[in-house]
Protein backbone atom coordinates (compact mmCIF):
# COMPACT_ATOMS: atom_id res chain seq x y z
CA UNK A 1 0.00 0.00 0.00
CA UNK A 2 1.36 3.37 -1.05
CA UNK A 3 1.23 6.51 1.08
CA UNK A 4 0.33 8.43 -2.05
CA UNK A 5 -0.65 7.73 -5.65
CA UNK A 6 -0.07 10.60 -8.08
CA UNK A 7 -2.01 10.47 -11.32
CA UNK A 8 -0.44 12.49 -14.12
CA UNK A 9 3.07 13.73 -14.86
CA UNK A 10 2.53 17.20 -16.23
CA UNK A 11 3.78 20.22 -14.26
CA UNK A 12 1.35 19.51 -11.37
CA UNK A 13 2.12 15.80 -11.03
CA UNK A 14 5.86 16.32 -11.39
CA UNK A 15 5.95 19.06 -8.74
CA UNK A 16 3.89 16.82 -6.43
CA UNK A 17 6.31 13.93 -7.00
CA UNK A 18 9.34 16.03 -6.14
CA UNK A 19 7.74 17.26 -2.92
CA UNK A 20 6.62 13.72 -2.05
CA UNK A 21 10.16 12.42 -2.66
CA UNK A 22 11.62 15.11 -0.41
CA UNK A 23 9.14 14.10 2.31
CA UNK A 24 10.33 10.49 1.80
CA UNK A 25 6.81 9.28 1.14
CA UNK A 26 6.25 5.86 -0.38
CA UNK A 27 4.51 6.91 -3.56
CA UNK A 28 3.73 6.01 -7.15
CA UNK A 29 3.30 8.14 -10.29
CA UNK A 30 1.01 6.83 -13.03
CA UNK A 31 0.88 8.82 -16.27
CA UNK A 32 -0.04 8.55 -19.91
CA UNK A 33 3.05 10.58 -20.73
CA UNK A 34 5.59 12.87 -19.12
CA UNK A 35 5.08 16.57 -19.61
CA UNK A 36 1.39 16.64 -20.42
CA UNK A 37 0.24 19.78 -22.16
CA UNK A 38 3.50 21.55 -21.28
CA UNK A 39 5.26 19.26 -23.77
CA UNK A 40 3.04 20.65 -26.51
CA UNK A 41 3.67 24.27 -25.63
CA UNK A 42 5.69 26.33 -28.04
CA UNK A 43 7.59 29.22 -26.53
CA UNK A 44 7.31 29.72 -22.78
CA UNK A 45 8.32 33.14 -21.46
CA UNK A 46 6.54 33.26 -18.11
CA UNK A 47 8.01 30.38 -16.11
CA UNK A 48 10.32 32.06 -13.65
CA UNK A 49 13.99 31.25 -13.90
CA UNK A 50 13.69 30.90 -17.66
CA UNK A 51 13.29 34.06 -19.71
CA UNK A 52 12.72 31.85 -22.71
CA UNK A 53 12.32 28.10 -23.01
CA UNK A 54 10.32 25.77 -25.25
CA UNK A 55 7.78 23.27 -23.90
CA UNK A 56 9.86 20.16 -24.67
CA UNK A 57 12.97 21.79 -23.13
CA UNK A 58 11.14 22.70 -19.93
CA UNK A 59 9.79 19.14 -19.68
CA UNK A 60 13.34 17.84 -20.13
CA UNK A 61 14.37 19.97 -17.12
CA UNK A 62 11.39 18.61 -15.14
CA UNK A 63 12.41 15.04 -15.97
CA UNK A 64 16.01 15.68 -14.93
CA UNK A 65 14.72 17.02 -11.62
CA UNK A 66 12.60 13.88 -11.09
CA UNK A 67 15.54 11.63 -11.94
CA UNK A 68 17.68 13.39 -9.35
CA UNK A 69 15.28 12.00 -6.73
CA UNK A 70 15.10 8.62 -8.46
CA UNK A 71 11.39 8.99 -9.16
CA UNK A 72 10.08 6.27 -11.43
CA UNK A 73 6.94 6.84 -13.42
CA UNK A 74 4.52 4.23 -14.70
CA UNK A 75 4.42 5.74 -18.15
CA UNK A 76 1.95 4.99 -20.96
CA UNK A 77 -0.46 3.74 -18.31
CA UNK A 78 -3.98 5.05 -18.08
CA UNK A 79 -6.10 5.22 -14.94
CA UNK A 80 -9.59 3.87 -15.57
CA UNK A 81 -11.15 4.20 -12.13
CA UNK A 82 -10.42 5.77 -8.77
CA UNK A 83 -12.56 5.17 -5.69
CA UNK A 84 -12.37 5.43 -1.96
CA UNK A 85 -13.15 2.11 -0.27
CA UNK A 86 -12.91 1.55 3.48
CA UNK A 87 -10.54 4.48 4.01
CA UNK A 88 -8.26 3.33 1.18
CA UNK A 89 -7.92 4.82 -2.28
CA UNK A 90 -8.37 2.17 -4.90
CA UNK A 91 -6.89 2.93 -8.35
CA UNK A 92 -7.48 0.71 -11.33
CA UNK A 93 -5.37 1.33 -14.43
CA UNK A 94 -5.43 -0.37 -17.81
CA UNK A 95 -2.75 -2.71 -16.41
CA UNK A 96 -3.00 -3.08 -12.64
CA UNK A 97 -4.82 -2.23 -9.45
CA UNK A 98 -3.10 -0.12 -6.80
CA UNK A 99 -4.00 0.92 -3.27
CA UNK A 100 -2.99 4.08 -1.54
CA UNK A 101 -3.72 6.01 1.63
CA UNK A 102 -4.02 9.24 -0.37
CA UNK A 103 -4.13 10.30 -4.03
CA UNK A 104 -3.41 13.40 -6.06
CA UNK A 105 -5.29 13.75 -9.32
CA UNK A 106 -3.15 15.79 -11.70
CA UNK A 107 -4.34 14.29 -14.96
CA UNK A 108 -4.73 17.56 -16.85
CA UNK A 109 -6.72 18.12 -19.98
CA UNK A 110 -6.87 16.59 -23.41
CA UNK A 111 -8.15 17.74 -26.79
CA UNK A 112 -11.92 17.74 -26.79
CA UNK A 113 -13.48 15.16 -29.07
CA UNK A 114 -16.29 15.68 -31.57
CA UNK A 115 -18.29 12.70 -30.34
CA UNK A 116 -19.43 11.64 -33.81
CA UNK A 117 -19.42 8.20 -35.47
CA UNK A 118 -16.08 7.32 -37.07
CA UNK A 119 -14.02 9.64 -34.87
CA UNK A 120 -12.38 6.96 -32.71
CA UNK A 121 -12.02 4.57 -35.62
CA UNK A 122 -10.14 7.07 -37.80
CA UNK A 123 -8.03 8.68 -35.09
CA UNK A 124 -4.46 8.80 -36.48
CA UNK A 125 -5.82 7.47 -39.78
CA UNK A 126 -6.37 10.92 -41.16
CA UNK A 127 -8.03 12.42 -38.09
CA UNK A 128 -5.70 14.19 -35.69
CA UNK A 129 -5.78 16.50 -32.68
CA UNK A 130 -2.26 17.85 -33.24
CA UNK A 131 -1.89 20.02 -36.32
CA UNK A 132 1.61 21.01 -35.24
CA UNK A 133 2.72 17.36 -35.25
CA UNK A 134 0.89 15.84 -38.15
CA UNK A 135 0.13 18.64 -40.64
CA UNK A 136 3.22 17.88 -42.79
CA UNK A 137 1.74 14.47 -43.63
CA UNK A 138 -1.08 16.10 -45.58
CA UNK A 139 0.87 17.77 -48.38
CA UNK A 140 -1.28 18.55 -51.43
CA UNK A 141 -4.33 16.93 -49.84
CA UNK A 142 -7.82 18.31 -49.21
CA UNK A 143 -8.38 18.66 -45.49
CA UNK A 144 -10.90 19.95 -42.97
CA UNK A 145 -10.23 21.90 -39.79
CA UNK A 146 -12.99 21.63 -37.20
CA UNK A 147 -13.39 24.61 -34.89
CA UNK A 148 -13.61 28.38 -34.99
CA UNK A 149 -11.24 29.65 -32.29
CA UNK A 150 -7.57 30.54 -32.27
CA UNK A 151 -6.34 26.94 -32.24
CA UNK A 152 -8.45 26.12 -35.32
CA UNK A 153 -7.21 29.27 -37.08
CA UNK A 154 -3.65 28.40 -36.15
CA UNK A 155 -4.09 24.91 -37.63
CA UNK A 156 -5.56 26.42 -40.82
CA UNK A 157 -2.61 28.82 -41.11
CA UNK A 158 -0.13 25.97 -40.77
CA UNK A 159 -2.04 23.94 -43.37
CA UNK A 160 -2.11 26.79 -45.91
CA UNK A 161 1.61 26.16 -46.37
CA UNK A 162 1.11 22.43 -46.89
CA UNK A 163 -2.32 21.21 -47.97
CA UNK A 164 -4.21 21.68 -51.25
CA UNK A 165 -7.49 22.99 -49.88
CA UNK A 166 -8.69 23.64 -46.34
CA UNK A 167 -12.33 23.63 -45.26
CA UNK A 168 -12.80 25.35 -41.92
CA UNK A 169 -15.93 23.94 -40.31
CA UNK A 170 -17.28 26.17 -37.59
CA UNK A 171 -20.37 25.42 -35.54
CA UNK A 172 -21.15 29.07 -34.69
CA UNK A 173 -22.33 31.79 -37.09
CA UNK A 174 -18.94 33.55 -37.27
CA UNK A 175 -15.30 32.69 -36.54
CA UNK A 176 -13.95 33.59 -33.11
CA UNK A 177 -10.29 34.04 -32.27
CA UNK A 178 -8.08 37.04 -32.92
CA UNK A 179 -8.89 39.46 -35.73
CA UNK A 180 -5.36 39.26 -37.12
CA UNK A 181 -5.58 35.45 -37.42
CA UNK A 182 -9.07 35.57 -38.98
CA UNK A 183 -7.86 38.02 -41.62
CA UNK A 184 -4.89 35.87 -42.56
CA UNK A 185 -7.07 32.77 -42.91
CA UNK A 186 -9.83 34.54 -44.87
CA UNK A 187 -7.26 36.03 -47.28
CA UNK A 188 -6.02 32.65 -48.49
CA UNK A 189 -7.53 31.27 -51.69
CA UNK A 190 -6.91 27.78 -50.33
CA UNK A 191 -9.43 28.22 -47.50
CA UNK A 192 -13.21 27.98 -47.52
CA UNK A 193 -15.06 28.80 -44.31
CA UNK A 194 -18.29 27.02 -43.46
CA UNK A 195 -20.06 28.73 -40.58
CA UNK A 196 -23.15 27.41 -38.73
CA UNK A 197 -22.06 23.94 -39.79
CA UNK A 198 -21.76 20.85 -37.64
CA UNK A 199 -19.88 17.64 -38.25
CA UNK A 200 -22.10 14.55 -38.14
CA UNK A 201 -19.71 11.74 -39.08
CA UNK A 202 -16.22 10.83 -40.18
CA UNK A 203 -16.08 8.36 -43.05
CA UNK A 204 -13.38 6.31 -44.74
CA UNK A 205 -12.05 2.85 -45.50
CA UNK A 206 -8.56 2.16 -44.17
CA UNK A 207 -7.96 5.95 -43.93
CA UNK A 208 -10.25 8.98 -43.85
CA UNK A 209 -11.98 9.70 -47.17
CA UNK A 210 -14.50 12.31 -46.13
CA UNK A 211 -16.52 14.11 -43.54
CA UNK A 212 -20.30 14.45 -43.24
CA UNK A 213 -21.53 17.91 -42.37
CA UNK A 214 -24.92 19.46 -41.71
CA UNK A 215 -25.84 23.03 -42.47
CA UNK A 216 -29.38 24.36 -42.15
CA UNK A 217 -30.76 20.82 -42.09
CA UNK A 218 -28.94 19.99 -45.31
CA UNK A 219 -26.46 17.15 -45.02
CA UNK A 220 -23.55 16.70 -47.39
CA UNK A 221 -20.24 14.87 -47.61
CA UNK A 222 -16.97 16.70 -48.17
CA UNK A 223 -14.24 14.53 -49.66
CA UNK A 224 -11.15 15.12 -47.48
CA UNK A 225 -8.17 13.00 -46.50
CA UNK A 226 -7.29 14.90 -43.36
CA UNK A 227 -9.38 16.11 -40.42
CA UNK A 228 -7.90 18.41 -37.76
CA UNK A 229 -10.05 18.64 -34.64
CA UNK A 230 -9.44 21.91 -32.77
CA UNK A 231 -12.47 22.44 -30.55
CA UNK A 232 -10.88 23.08 -27.20
CA UNK A 233 -9.99 20.92 -24.21
CA UNK A 234 -11.73 18.59 -21.76
CA UNK A 235 -10.52 17.62 -18.28
CA UNK A 236 -9.32 14.04 -17.77
CA UNK A 237 -11.56 13.51 -14.77
CA UNK A 238 -14.00 10.76 -15.83
CA UNK A 239 -12.19 8.04 -13.87
CA UNK A 240 -12.73 9.87 -10.58
CA UNK A 241 -16.36 8.97 -10.06
CA UNK A 242 -16.92 10.20 -6.53
CA UNK A 243 -15.29 13.61 -6.40
CA UNK A 244 -17.41 16.68 -7.00
CA UNK A 245 -16.95 18.44 -10.34
CA UNK A 246 -18.19 21.63 -11.97
CA UNK A 247 -20.30 21.81 -15.14
CA UNK A 248 -17.14 21.58 -17.28
CA UNK A 249 -16.12 18.32 -15.60
CA UNK A 250 -13.29 20.02 -13.71
CA UNK A 251 -12.64 18.67 -10.22
CA UNK A 252 -13.66 21.14 -7.53
CA UNK A 253 -10.89 21.97 -5.08
CA UNK A 254 -10.57 24.44 -2.23
CA UNK A 255 -7.52 26.64 -1.71
CA UNK A 256 -5.77 23.68 -0.07
CA UNK A 257 -6.23 21.39 -3.13
CA UNK A 258 -8.73 19.26 -1.19
CA UNK A 259 -11.53 17.63 -3.21
CA UNK A 260 -14.93 16.69 -1.82
CA UNK A 261 -13.47 13.30 -0.76
CA UNK A 262 -11.02 13.34 2.21
CA UNK A 263 -7.61 11.97 1.22
CA UNK A 264 -8.11 12.75 -2.47
CA UNK A 265 -6.41 15.93 -3.64
CA UNK A 266 -6.28 17.48 -7.11
CA UNK A 267 -3.99 19.95 -8.85
CA UNK A 268 -3.40 21.62 -12.18
CA UNK A 269 -5.60 21.96 -15.25
CA UNK A 270 -7.93 19.13 -14.26
CA UNK A 271 -9.23 21.32 -11.41
CA UNK A 272 -11.57 24.31 -11.34
CA UNK A 273 -8.66 26.67 -10.55
CA UNK A 274 -9.19 29.36 -13.16
CA UNK A 275 -5.62 29.99 -14.18
CA UNK A 276 -4.42 27.28 -16.54
CA UNK A 277 -0.73 28.07 -16.38
CA UNK A 278 2.35 25.88 -16.08
CA UNK A 279 3.62 27.77 -13.06
CA UNK A 280 0.22 27.67 -11.33
CA UNK A 281 -0.12 23.92 -11.97
CA UNK A 282 3.35 23.33 -10.54
CA UNK A 283 2.50 25.38 -7.43
CA UNK A 284 -0.78 23.55 -6.92
CA UNK A 285 1.02 20.20 -7.30
CA UNK A 286 3.48 21.18 -4.58
CA UNK A 287 0.60 22.21 -2.31
CA UNK A 288 -1.23 18.93 -2.95
CA UNK A 289 1.80 16.81 -1.96
CA UNK A 290 2.29 18.79 1.24
CA UNK A 291 -1.42 18.46 2.02
CA UNK A 292 -1.29 14.69 1.45
CA UNK A 293 1.69 14.50 3.80
CA UNK A 294 -0.18 16.52 6.44
CA UNK A 295 -3.31 14.40 6.02
CA UNK A 296 -1.29 11.22 6.67
CA UNK A 297 0.33 12.72 9.76
CA UNK A 298 -3.12 13.55 11.14
CA UNK A 299 -4.39 10.00 10.53
CA UNK A 300 -1.72 8.47 12.73
Amino acid at each position, binding site marked *: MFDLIIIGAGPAGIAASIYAARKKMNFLVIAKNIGGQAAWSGDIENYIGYQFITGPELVEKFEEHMLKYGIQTKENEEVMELRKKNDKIWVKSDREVYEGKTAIIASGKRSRELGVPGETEFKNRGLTYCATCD*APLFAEKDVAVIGGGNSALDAALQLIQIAKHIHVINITSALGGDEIMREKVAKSEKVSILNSTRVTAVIGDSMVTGIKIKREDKEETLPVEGIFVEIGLSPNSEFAKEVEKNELGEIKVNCQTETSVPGIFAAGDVTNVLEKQIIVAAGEGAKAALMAFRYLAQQK
Partner: protein
Amino acid sequence: MNKKVMVYSTPTCPFCTMAKRFLKENNIDFEDIDVSADQTKAREMVQKSGQMAVPVLDVNGEVIVGFDRERIKKALGL
Protein backbone atom coordinates in the same frame (compact mmCIF):
# COMPACT_ATOMS: atom_id res chain seq x y z
CA MET B 1 24.42 -6.27 -31.52
CA ASN B 2 23.75 -3.54 -34.02
CA LYS B 3 20.14 -2.81 -34.81
CA LYS B 4 18.94 -0.58 -37.59
CA VAL B 5 16.76 2.15 -36.14
CA MET B 6 14.74 4.69 -38.13
CA VAL B 7 12.71 7.53 -36.66
CA TYR B 8 10.01 9.07 -38.85
CA SER B 9 9.32 12.49 -37.41
CA THR B 10 8.41 16.12 -38.00
CA PRO B 11 10.50 18.96 -36.59
CA THR B 12 7.57 20.38 -34.61
CA CYS B 13 6.28 17.33 -32.77
CA PRO B 14 7.29 17.16 -29.09
CA PHE B 15 7.12 13.38 -28.77
CA CYS B 16 9.43 13.05 -31.79
CA THR B 17 11.95 15.24 -29.98
CA MET B 18 11.56 13.15 -26.82
CA ALA B 19 11.95 9.86 -28.71
CA LYS B 20 15.12 11.06 -30.42
CA ARG B 21 16.51 12.36 -27.14
CA PHE B 22 15.81 9.00 -25.50
CA LEU B 23 17.73 7.17 -28.26
CA LYS B 24 20.66 9.59 -27.99
CA GLU B 25 20.80 9.17 -24.21
CA ASN B 26 21.05 5.43 -24.73
CA ASN B 27 23.76 5.84 -27.39
CA ILE B 28 21.61 4.33 -30.11
CA ASP B 29 22.47 5.36 -33.66
CA PHE B 30 19.41 6.09 -35.74
CA GLU B 31 18.37 7.51 -39.06
CA ASP B 32 16.23 10.61 -38.55
CA ILE B 33 13.67 10.92 -41.34
CA ASP B 34 11.89 14.25 -41.56
CA VAL B 35 8.59 13.36 -43.23
CA SER B 36 7.67 17.02 -43.62
CA ALA B 37 10.58 17.42 -46.04
CA ASP B 38 10.25 14.10 -47.88
CA GLN B 39 6.85 13.04 -49.22
CA THR B 40 8.09 9.64 -50.43
CA LYS B 41 9.25 8.84 -46.92
CA ALA B 42 5.95 10.16 -45.52
CA ARG B 43 4.07 7.67 -47.69
CA GLU B 44 6.49 4.93 -46.67
CA MET B 45 5.74 5.70 -43.02
CA VAL B 46 1.97 5.52 -43.58
CA GLN B 47 2.35 2.20 -45.39
CA LYS B 48 4.57 0.72 -42.71
CA SER B 49 2.49 1.81 -39.76
CA GLY B 50 -1.01 1.84 -41.27
CA GLN B 51 -1.65 5.23 -39.71
CA MET B 52 -0.77 8.90 -40.08
CA ALA B 53 0.71 10.18 -36.85
CA VAL B 54 4.32 10.83 -35.86
CA PRO B 55 6.62 9.65 -34.42
CA VAL B 56 6.98 6.19 -35.92
CA LEU B 57 10.02 4.10 -35.02
CA ASP B 58 11.30 1.21 -37.05
CA VAL B 59 13.62 -0.97 -34.98
CA ASN B 60 14.94 -3.76 -37.20
CA GLY B 61 11.55 -4.01 -38.88
CA GLU B 62 9.48 -3.74 -35.70
CA VAL B 63 7.21 -0.73 -36.13
CA ILE B 64 6.40 1.30 -33.01
CA VAL B 65 3.86 4.11 -33.22
CA GLY B 66 4.26 6.98 -30.74
CA PHE B 67 6.91 7.48 -28.06
CA ASP B 68 6.46 4.27 -26.10
CA ARG B 69 9.58 4.04 -23.92
CA GLU B 70 8.93 0.50 -22.70
CA ARG B 71 8.33 -0.92 -26.18
CA ILE B 72 11.38 0.87 -27.57
CA LYS B 73 13.52 -0.53 -24.74
CA LYS B 74 12.24 -4.03 -25.38
CA ALA B 75 12.79 -3.80 -29.13
CA LEU B 76 16.35 -2.57 -28.55
CA GLY B 77 17.06 -5.08 -25.80
CA LEU B 78 17.91 -2.30 -23.31
